[in-house]
């Protein structure tokens, strides 16, 4: 809008446990209240199931599980809806914090082995007192592996 933000982009900052993550705001279609997903069989454990969002069936990725956080999740989490290459997906996070204007060039391109798959980690942004991991949300959520136990299941 104003000149101040000319070279900057908007990022949505969200929280999981005590850590902050950010992704380009325009990667999200909307933020909705948590809807309890229905189970989809034979999918990896972080694939929580599917929900019916105004007639559209979409898969739900529990970002907290995918990022390797343990139990004791927020009781009232939020869902971020993003349109990925493989179709619409909802990502469960604990809470949406705020939107920041940030220049992509100021994102520190530091790749560390961590919870986020390195190819999806774009770097870190230093904003006020926070250190925020910037992730390529579309790429991260749409990377769904095949559930490893599918094959053996029917032996039972």
């Amino acid at each position, binding site marked *: 809008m104003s000149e101040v933000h000319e070279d900057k982009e908007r990022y949505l900052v969200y929280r999981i446990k005590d850590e902050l993550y950010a992704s380009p705001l325009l990667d999200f279609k909307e933020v909705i209240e948590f809807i309890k997903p*229905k189970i*989809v*069989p*034979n999918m990896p454990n972080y694939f929580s199931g599917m929900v019916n969002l105004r007639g559209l069936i979409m*898969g739900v990725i529990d970002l907290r599980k995918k990022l390797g956080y343990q139990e004791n999740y927020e009781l009232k989490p939020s869902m971020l809806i993003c349109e990925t290459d493989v*179709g619409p997906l909802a990502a469960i996070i604990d809470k949406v914090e705020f939107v920041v204007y940030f220049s992509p060039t100021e994102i520190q391109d530091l790749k560390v082995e961590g919870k986020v798959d390195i190819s999806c980690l774009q770097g870190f942004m230093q904003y006020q007192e926070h250190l925020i991991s910037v992730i390529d949300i579309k790429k991260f959520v749409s990377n*769904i592996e095949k559930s490893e*136990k599918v094959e053996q299941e029917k032996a*039972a």
Partner: protein
Amino acid sequence: MSELDDDLVKSFLEEATDLLSKWEGYCLQLEKELTPDTLNALFRIAHNIKGSSRAVGLNDVGQFIHIIEDVIVSIKEGRSQLNRKKLTMFLDAQTIMNEWFAVLMLESSYKFFPEEFIGKYFNEKKEFVEDEDVSLEAQEVSTEAQSKPLAEEAKVIQLKKEVKDEVLRVSTKKIDGLLNLIGELSIQQSILENCIQQSAVKDQEALVQSSLNLSRKITKEIYSMAFGLRMTPVGGIFQRLERAIKDLARDLNKDIDVVFHGSEVEIEKTILDKLIDPLTHIVRNSVDHGLEKNEERAGLEKPKKGQITISAIKQDDGVEIIVKDDGRGLNQKRILEKAIEKNLVKANSTMTKEEIFSLIFLPGFSTAEKVTNVSGRGVGMDVVMKTLEEVNGKILVGSEEGRGTKFKISIPTSLSIVDSLIVNINNDQYVIPIHSLEEVVDVDPVHMKMEDSIYVYRGKVIPFLHLGDVLQDTNQKKHHGVFPVLVTKVQGKRLALGVDMVLGQHQSVVRTLSSYFEKSFAVSGGTILPSGEPGLILNINSISEKYFKYLQTSKEVSA
């Protein structure tokens, strides 16, 4: 040359493809009877294509059709006679242009001129070359020329797959009807709005109620009409089948009558497209193997001309397409012998007539005694069956020796709505298409044997699998008392599938699921359940196939 306007070319091609199918129809009519009207109609099409192709800059097409047009004009003016060779040329020209246009559709800069075709029928001055009796040599050329475009066709089909958005031709009547309804709906809506604005809802309760009722009715109609937009009459493929029959009959020197019934019956376009290959295969089989030569028929007290009847009949749950010929019929004995020889069935097994006939759908079955270049195109009846299964179709065959063969194909009219059962498995609701099931039975655990892996079904043992074990980790044995079992049949083999409860029947509107759901092999689509929750449509075929494969490998391991 100027830059071609892509959109313009595309709309020309759509129109031209439509015209070409009419062209085919007129040619087939001309074959029966030469009338000035039909000839004129043919001429108008040629002229039309010539004009518009040049207008959009496709000069090659214009030049080509001009040569054909000249021949039609010469017949019209009585300078030459319509004969078999000219008719074949017209039909060949249609085939070539169809392929040509299909490629142009994807690649409007495609440069091509059918030199080979021109060389076959025309001299250097582009004058039609007459020769009354078609010599054998010429016939050979014609089969060669036909086999070549086939390779091209394969390329085209492959290219076609990449085009995602499909263009449908819809009759204006349907669109008008739809617009009308939407108009009516908005009237009702404004009545409601008006009532609320005047805050007089109370006084006008009756009006509001009737307006609501009407809206509901209109919405329902809009829904079914919007569905109808995707429907096309089967008549469109009948013409192609007639062409296939006539072409082959000409090659084999057989005289065949083709009769159609119910060409106005409508099926969803995607399903109709899938039917073309299987039906073509079946009719070609009929022409090649089924119908006897004309001379042979005379000795059998049959009408000299063989007859193929193709009918489409609307049924409650879809459409039935019946292909019937009055040829020699299937030979039970030979089919059984072949199946035994190929190890598809055990020797001295007792089978009913129907069971024997259904052997022809097994992969690897072919009465190869007389593979001709006609029916030996590498597509067997098993492929026919597979293709039909893709659109939830079924095929049955009946035959009487010496009297003829009848194929009955049942297909749903639409893939967007399926009749299904809603079942409860591990406290979750799942949707199972009814067409994939043979029967639902209540089972007493007494009939379960071998640690619940076998179910005794009418004296026969069939493998049993609880769907709960497929869908989730659970492996508890929990058959307290009678429970429902769904019996399915995949590739001739039965499988019993246990569920916890059958909740009821439902017409499910199928939603295509995003591609990531493919990771779950058991699912073929999604739907919204009556409760508003999303539901999964289970793919019984793929579950059963996987299970049979699993049984197979575990058998090999233990052996």
